[in-house]
């Protein structure tokens, strides 16, 4: 099971203006691997997720490039997939844990109905058997079966997130996309939810794309990490390598700004703020804020260069 994305461009087009939210991104996610995507807000990571999940609604449109899922028994190119094709793979092969999971469940129906709507058409069988599978699955995620009869507003935030994760994994999908699943939770609940995600992923052996701005979460969860800045992938590699030797100046800044226990100096601050994607700066989009920027950075766009085993970076100065 692999996900391959080649030179994907996805823009927001409305009344003549063009916002280049995702601008020529290429990456691959292997089987049984958690690939993390990090970057500040408005770095285009949510737009990337939406296009990958086939949820691009006007004014967001895929301009060019391809997204290919190689599931065990079928391949699907998302940019050209038909509605019926999408419907077949959704939740069976590809599932999704949304950002604001607080109200992804239908507020006026009991949780049980969500499971029926999302999973029944894939699992099938008589209703009692279907519900025993569901209940076993919930057991495995330390969730009581009574949760099925509750209304979403009767559950706590953390509980609702766990149910969302249970829902996303009940059909044992090959690929799970998680978009900031723990952001809205407090730290304690966040820890238990992250461990839950890791255990489920290990149990199912499915690949996962994990998006968050919180580098600490990436550190203890993701196998490989990609750093997004202003709609482009600036560095990618094994998480351990990136944390030990960040190459791209932006990655260095991100790692450096992580609070360390006992560190007294305040984290270095970065001048300026992320560019406006409506008219991004020419060349490398980080150059206005990059302490190492040289003349070339302002004209040309740095390509991704292999710098080590599976470690790529797009920077004229730091890349070898």
């Amino acid at each position, binding site marked *: 099971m692999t996900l391959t994305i080649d030179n994907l461009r996805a823009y927001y087009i*409305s*009344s003549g203006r063009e916002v280049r939210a995702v601008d020529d991104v290429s990456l691959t996610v292997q089987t049984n691997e958690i690939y993390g995507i990090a970057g500040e807000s408005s770095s285009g990571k949510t737009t990337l997720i939406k296009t990958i999940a086939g949820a691009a609604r006007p*004014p967001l449109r895929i301009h060019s490039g391809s997204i290919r899922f190689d599931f065990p028994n079928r391949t699907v190119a998302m940019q050209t997939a038909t509605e019926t094709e999408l419907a077949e793979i959704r939740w069976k092969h590809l599932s999704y844990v949304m950002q604001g999971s607080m109200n992804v469940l239908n507020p006026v129906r009991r949780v049980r109905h969500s499971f029926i709507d999302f999973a029944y058409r894939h699992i099938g069988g008589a209703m009692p058997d279907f519900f025993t599978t569901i209940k076993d699955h919930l057991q495995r995620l330390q969730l009581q079966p009574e949760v099925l009869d509750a209304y979403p507003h009767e559950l706590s935030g953390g509980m609702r997130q766990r149910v969302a994760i249970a829902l996303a994994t009940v059909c044992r999908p090959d690929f799970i996309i998680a978009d900031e699943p723990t952001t809205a939770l407090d730290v304690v609940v966040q820890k238990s939810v992250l461990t839950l995600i890791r255990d489920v992923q290990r149990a199912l052996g499915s690949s996962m794309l994990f998006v968050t701005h919180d580098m600490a979460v990436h550190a203890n969860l993701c196998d490989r990490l990609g750093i997004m800045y202003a709609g482009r992938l600036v560095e990618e590699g094994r998480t351990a390598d990136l944390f030990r030797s960040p190459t791209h100046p932006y990655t260095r800044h991100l790692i450096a700004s992580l609070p360390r226990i006992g560190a007294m100096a305040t984290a270095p601050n970065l001048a300026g703020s992320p560019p406006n994607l409506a008219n991004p700066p020419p060349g490398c989009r980080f150059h206005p804020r990059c302490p190492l920027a040289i003349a070339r950075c302002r004209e040309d766009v740095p390509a991704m260069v292999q710098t080590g085993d599976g470690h790529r970076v797009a920077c004229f100065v730091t890349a070898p």
Partner: protein
Amino acid sequence: MLRRNREFVIGVTLLTIVLAIAASSIFAPYPSNDTFVVPPDVPPSWAYPLGTTSRGQDVYWQLSAAIRNTLLFGFTVALISRCLSLAIGLTAGYLGGFIDRVLMSINDTFIVIPLFPILVLFYFVMRDHMSWFLLALVMACLGWSYDARLIRSVALSLRAREFTDTARFSGMTTTQILLREHLPYVLPIVFSTTMNNINWSIGLEVTLSVLGFTNIDTPTIGVMIYWANQHTAMVAGIWWWIAFPVGLVAITFIGLFLLAVSMNEYIDPRSRLSRLRT
């Protein structure tokens, strides 16, 4: 922004036509409630563009006077009821607590009570002394409740905003806050509810007059249809006596309605966004 909004443009054009006809009533050659000033039952022709009635009146001049009176009536009712709904809506929204609950429960009473029997009773009691202004006053006192609730919800959202606190801390009294701070926010809502209220009151006026429950001497759209029914115009084939007032009042309703709808969308950002997306 409004120029591009299709409903607004149509609404305005329709209303200008109606207002033009109403204004032209000044040049009417005969007093509006005199009868047999022209030959009766003449179908629309060059001499009489909209034909003449069985009572010997020119349908066009009768219509211009009728629409003027009806609009005047609708406008007076809307004006008075706006004051009521604003006063009650803002105070209830702003003060909240016990006063809000009391005002709102009374408000809900007036929403629920069927108003038509009460209005009919008022006519029945007042009889000859029932002037148009009195009827307008009564309708205004019964017609403020629906919009008071709308205005209260706006006031509630405004109260939660910071600038209300800063105003209060700077020593402004409640009424000052309501007038200077909240009113500018509330005015667009008031405009759209006024349009709806004019529609509501004209609708009731037409209905009351057609049943003969108003003063049948002053020409309004309802009274015109009342007299047409007295002369069984539709059956007698004098269709133009009923078709033009019904058509004109329908145009007025749709015009006012489109204005109210377009103004609503202008106020509610989210629906403006959805307009963007299509």
